[in-house]
């Protein structure tokens, strides 16, 4: 999985951090960033949940 976060769309809700804390974190302004740009397949379910629960649709899978 190759992920990307659209920081302009990110509203800092932290939904991604709650769903996949090994993959996502937030800076002090709440903007999400990737701890791992290419997370392992073991994180697939968590990442899917993170993408589905982002209220602004800021996370996309680039490929895979």
């Amino acid at each position, binding site marked *: 999985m190759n992920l990307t976060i659209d920081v*302009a769309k990110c509203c800092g809700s932290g939904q991604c951090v709650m769903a996949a804390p090994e993959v996502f974190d937030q800076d002090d302004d709440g903007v999400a960033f990737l701890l791992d740009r290419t997370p392992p397949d073991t994180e697939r379910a968590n990442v899917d949940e993170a993408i589905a629960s982002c209220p602004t649709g800021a996370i996309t899978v680039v490929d895979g």
Partner: protein
Amino acid sequence: MGTGHGGVQTGNALRRAGWSGPITLVGAEPHLPYQRPPLSKSCADAQALDEQALFHPAGHYDTLGVDLELGAQVVAIDRDGAQVELHSGRRLAYDHLVLALGSRPRPVPVAGCRLAGVHTLRTLDDARRVSAHLRSARSVVLVGGGFIGLELATVAARLGIRVTVVEVAPRLLHGAVTPVTGEFLTERHTAGGVRLRLGEAVDRITGVHGAVRSVLTVSGEELPADLVVIGVGAVPNCELAGAAGLPVDDGILVDNGLLTADPAISAIGDCARFPYGNRRVRLSSVQNAFDGATHVARRLTGGAAEYAPVPWFWTDQAGVKVQMAGLPAALHGGLEERFDVEGDVAGGSFSVHRYVDGSFVGGESVGMPRAHLAMRRRLAAEGASAVALAG
């Protein structure tokens, strides 16, 4: 019905839950479904608005097999016939109808509110109009110091425009945030050049040649204005439901599963009033629309738990992001409240924890997103709705 946060997430969540039947999103506006928070926050930049506001490109709905009926005004819900009637005369049959109709700006019957240059802000078209006007405006007056007014004030001040906010309550965001956070924001707005007129009401809006010229306050101050935005709350769009015989009371009444009195109709988001603790509440937030939609999708595909959300909200204003967890303070009003403040308020890195009758009910965080998530986890663990509400 509705192509806002509730409608879009209902479609997304149904497909994610594995439902493969037909889904149609019906929206009165002609635009591809878009998000409302950027309308006030990114108002200055028309291009940013266009880029950030859409939920998804058109192809997303094709891929999911979700039909869009845009620019489609529903004029009646025919419950007996299980169909909705559009303005065009077409009828759309349903097995289940989800009402995600949102809310609209509360109308303010002040003289002069129809002058050119006086706006409300709810839709993308509103935002584009305000954005265009901001380019030439020299004096902006925001009527109402709520989230819309303060976010727009921030945008205008950053453009170097003279901005005044007129708010009837004695302090900023009274009823939405604690006094600690209210004072912090007051200082930051003032430092950013926003003039605040608290405990003040508008007497009338004056104009010349049909265009706004100034706002007159009840105290007699005349505020020059070539752009006025009125944001004094929103009323739920529940008229169609009421006309169809569904119980409404400042919102479409639903049970704890978000089902109306009609087993084939659910209601979510701004337009729905649902049981929470010992009362019924109506929450206007992305969270409530999104989580309500997810809940209904689960319920329709076999899940049965009650809708027991952890409310959260955010605002971007005065150069900071304020994150809130729990219900707005106003809903706990009148009950004993204690605040615990941690961090550095002056430095803009702090958290306020709120307690009602000794129970944690939520709070605010600025520059501390981990503290905000911790509050939400705590509310989930302790039962967000367990605390009695005022009234």
